[in-house]
């Protein structure tokens, strides 16, 4: 591991975090909410510090990033970025304790959307904006952003891109990785603008529309109100958010091909998308029926069921209803969706639909092999063979996911958390969703955890966002050997 190069590159990411804080400062000045000074201070501190580090670690020698460096840089960048992103919360006094501020910042960047704020509505608007903006930055990926705007990352950018963007297979949209990163961000910005425009037109204030757009497009889930999206009492807004959560749960390179290149038929091709939509439909219908005894008007029932399903499946975590009160079947269904998550290449978290699809296909080949011992059965996707390496990787990830989930839940319970809360909070953080069940249900928040638990959950969120392996690598001694 090339430590100098690693710190050098991480300092660039930190600088971007500092730079974007100016945007939040602008919002704070506009609304004169008193948080402007503290945001500006944290912004300049971040930028000056990272600039010094950048200069100090600069070398003339041209250096190539190795695969190892890629993992190290991405892992450290996310931990570092969360640190600097937490500064405005601490300085402004909105979240005075650093541990909780760090959790909030990590929750923002990893698009989890879990909060430790008890009363969101009293927090200054500049800070609320920063919180939501972190979602949007983290949604498409800060590293992908750096690769897109910084030409000198060059070839090594591929390693970084690989380590950060979710899913078992990566689409390259052009011959150069920088071009791919740029195109992905362009698509992301364009769809975001559409989402913002519609939310604004549907009656939100500019501020609310921007913050909810950030939360929706990044499948984050931070709201500006205590009662989340339910605050607006507007079916139209809920449907708009459902639609854009759905969009954000789909691969953005697919959006690029279909929308920008004008080939809408591309949407019909991938199996993953079909399964994604099928799962959402099925889960919605199931939950719709479990709520029959509640005697709610059918449209409201349908809307609330669909909203919760899409919100959980895409790992957004917005709420319009309290599913704590729902039937056990509905809760288990939602829990299942938490594990599945969005499509590969989307801003959603979780294991990704494609991995579940491939695991099921693999299971099928195992069963077939029992029936025909000398038969040849391959895992295939869209008529193409999936290499064994990829299937093994998914099996490994799935196992690691379960192991880490068990381990972290156990740690939480050591600090006095009950079973339901511990397991669902860990799952929610690992999948970057937001709400869980029990004490972290949709109407509750994470304020009740003590410091050690908060640190555990912060690590869980970053692990989940980087699909576990990138972070686990940081804990391997071999990674740090020269």
């Amino acid at each position, binding site marked *: 591991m090339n430590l100098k190069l690693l710190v050098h590159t991480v300092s660039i990411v930190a600088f971007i975090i500092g730079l974007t804080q100016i945007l939040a400062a602008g919002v704070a000045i506009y609304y004169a909410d008193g948080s402007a000074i503290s945001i500006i201070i944290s912004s300049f501190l971040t930028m000056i510090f990272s600039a010094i580090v950048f200069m100090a670690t600069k070398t003339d020698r041209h250096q190539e990033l190795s695969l190892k460096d890629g993992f190290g840089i991405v892992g450290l960048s996310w931990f570092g970025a969360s640190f600097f992103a937490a500064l405005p919360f601490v300085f402004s006094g909105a979240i005075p304790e650093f541990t909780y501020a760090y959790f909030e910042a990590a929750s923002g960047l990893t698009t989890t959307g879990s909060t430790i704020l008890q009363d969101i509505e009293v927090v200054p608007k500049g800070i609320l904006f920063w919180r939501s903006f972190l979602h949007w930055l983290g949604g498409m990926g800060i590293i992908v952003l750096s690769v897109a705007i910084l030409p000198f990352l060059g070839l090594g950018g591929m390693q970084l891109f690989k380590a950060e963007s979710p899913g078992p297979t990566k689409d390259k949209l052009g011959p150069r990785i920088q071009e791919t990163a740029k195109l992905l961000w362009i698509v992301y910005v364009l769809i975001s603008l559409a989402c913002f425009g519609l939310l604004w037109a549907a009656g939100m204030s500019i501020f609310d529309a921007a913050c909810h757009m950030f939360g929706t497009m990044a499948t984050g889930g931070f709201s500006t109100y205590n009662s989340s999206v339910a605050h607006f009492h507007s079916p139209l807004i809920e449907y708009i958010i459902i639609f854009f959560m759905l969009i954000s749960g789909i691969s953005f390179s697919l959006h690029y091909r279909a929308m920008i290149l004008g080939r809408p038929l591309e949407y019909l091709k991938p199996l993953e998308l079909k399964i994604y939509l099928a799962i959402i439909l099925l889960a919605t219908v199931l939950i719709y029926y479990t709520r029959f005894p509640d005697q709610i008007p059918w449209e409201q029932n349908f809307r609330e069921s669909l909203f919760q399903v899409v919100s959980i499946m895409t790992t957004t975590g917005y709420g319009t209803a309290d599913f704590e009160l729902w039937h056990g079947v509905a809760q288990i269904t939602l829990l299942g969706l938490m594990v599945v998550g969005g499509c590969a290449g989307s801003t959603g978290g979780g294991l990704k639909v494609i991995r579940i699809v491939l695991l099921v296909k693999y299971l099928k080949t195992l069963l077939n092999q029992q029936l025909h011992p*000398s038969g040849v*059965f391959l895992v295939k996707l869209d008529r193409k063979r999936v290499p064994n390496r990829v299937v093994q990787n998914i099996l490994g990830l799935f196992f690691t996911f379960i192991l880490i989930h068990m381990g972290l839940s156990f740690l939480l319970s050591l600090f006095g958390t009950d079973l339901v809360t511990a397991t669902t909070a860990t799952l929610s953080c690992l999948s970057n969703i937001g709400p869980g069940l029990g004490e972290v249900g949709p109407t509750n928040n994470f304020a009740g955890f003590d410091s050690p638990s908060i640190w555990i959950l912060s690590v869980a969120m970053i692990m989940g966002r980087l699909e576990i392996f990138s972070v686990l690598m940081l804990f391997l001694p071999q990674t740090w050997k020269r």
Partner: protein
Amino acid sequence: MRIVIIGAGEVGVHLAEKLSLENHDITLIEANSERAQKVQDAIDILVLEGNGASPEVLKKAGLENCDLFLAVTNMDEVNIVSSLSASRYNVPFKIARVSNMEFYDLDNFLAAKNLGTDLLINPEFECALQVSNLLKIPGSTDYAEFAGGDVILFGLAPTREADCMGKLLMDLKPNSEEAQFLICSISRNGETLLPKGDTLIQPGDMVYFIARRTELDPVYEFCGLERTPIRRVMVLGGSKVSNYLCQIFEKQNIRATLIEPNERKAEQLAEELANTLIIHGDVKDLDLLIEEGLKEMDCFLALTPDDEDNMLTGIYAKNQNVEHVIALLGRLEYIPVFKKIGVHTSVSPRVTVTNSILKFIRGGNITSAATIQGSQTEIMEFEVEDNAHVNGKPLRELSLPDDVLFGMVRRDHEDFIPNGNTVLQSGDHVVTITLSKDHRKIERLFS
């Protein structure tokens, strides 16, 4: 005609043989010197040793005066490049053997047709098509299409209990005026008979019929057979033919089990085929065949590259009461033997491909042509032209050679079986049956 053939593989040699028998001048180019020598010793043609895509070799082969160019090596690239060269030499007809299906896509500007070939052939695919066509008429041997596919020719062996057995043809319904189908040829002990009124159908005969595709039931009734569609198939050997065939099966919802001994090949097949069960195992492992359900199969296809393997497994399958067994044959000499042992249907890629090339060469007013395997019968479809000899006269007044039969006539989308009073008109399509040695006579009738 001056003909240049590239590639002395199975297809190339068979073509050279067939065409030289029809008095064409043939130059064959082959890169492998051993094989080149062998062909030179066996057939009366000029053999050049060299790469078929090399400009020097092509020049030596005399492309300037060449009338027909056939590139039939087993390498697409060589075939395409050499026919591209041939089109630069202004050779009027260029035929290339291409197995990569992408070159057939006419929308692609790199499609082989756009690169200067007049006809593309894919022997393996045509062979697969032939087998799948045979299976559409369960129990049949040989299959050829006429009149754009509405009229078909096929062979069936009547059972001993069939009504037609031991009767004279003139007493039977077919070949009479109200007949729905026509008997065009009978194969008996390796000999070919063109049917006449006093011909007797005997046990063991293979009878060739011409009938409308939609009216096959009377033929089955005539032969005392029942027509049951095929649902389960076992395919032995994962050649290209099997690959194409299984793709066709998948489209027709026929469940296929394919057995391939080579592990990498088996994996590749599993990758390319969606719903076919691929088994990796020895094709001669009879226990494996039984375990994978040989006894429940409607049809067994032995398509390995080895004739002997195909023969032995074919007999075994027949013994296990598999109703239809088709074996792929490289050597035509085996065909009568196969027929005798009950594996009564067999196909070979070089025959199917020779048929399509002969069809193309004859061109002109011949719209379709076929040969019956292992026999000397040729079936051709002519279009009657204004100045043809046959135009405007009742058939009985034409001085027809002895061994010529007129099968179906298609006029204004109607198919009928002609008799002595039929007057052919220009624009009619006529299916004729002759022995191979007489086909020039019949071509003269229609010129």
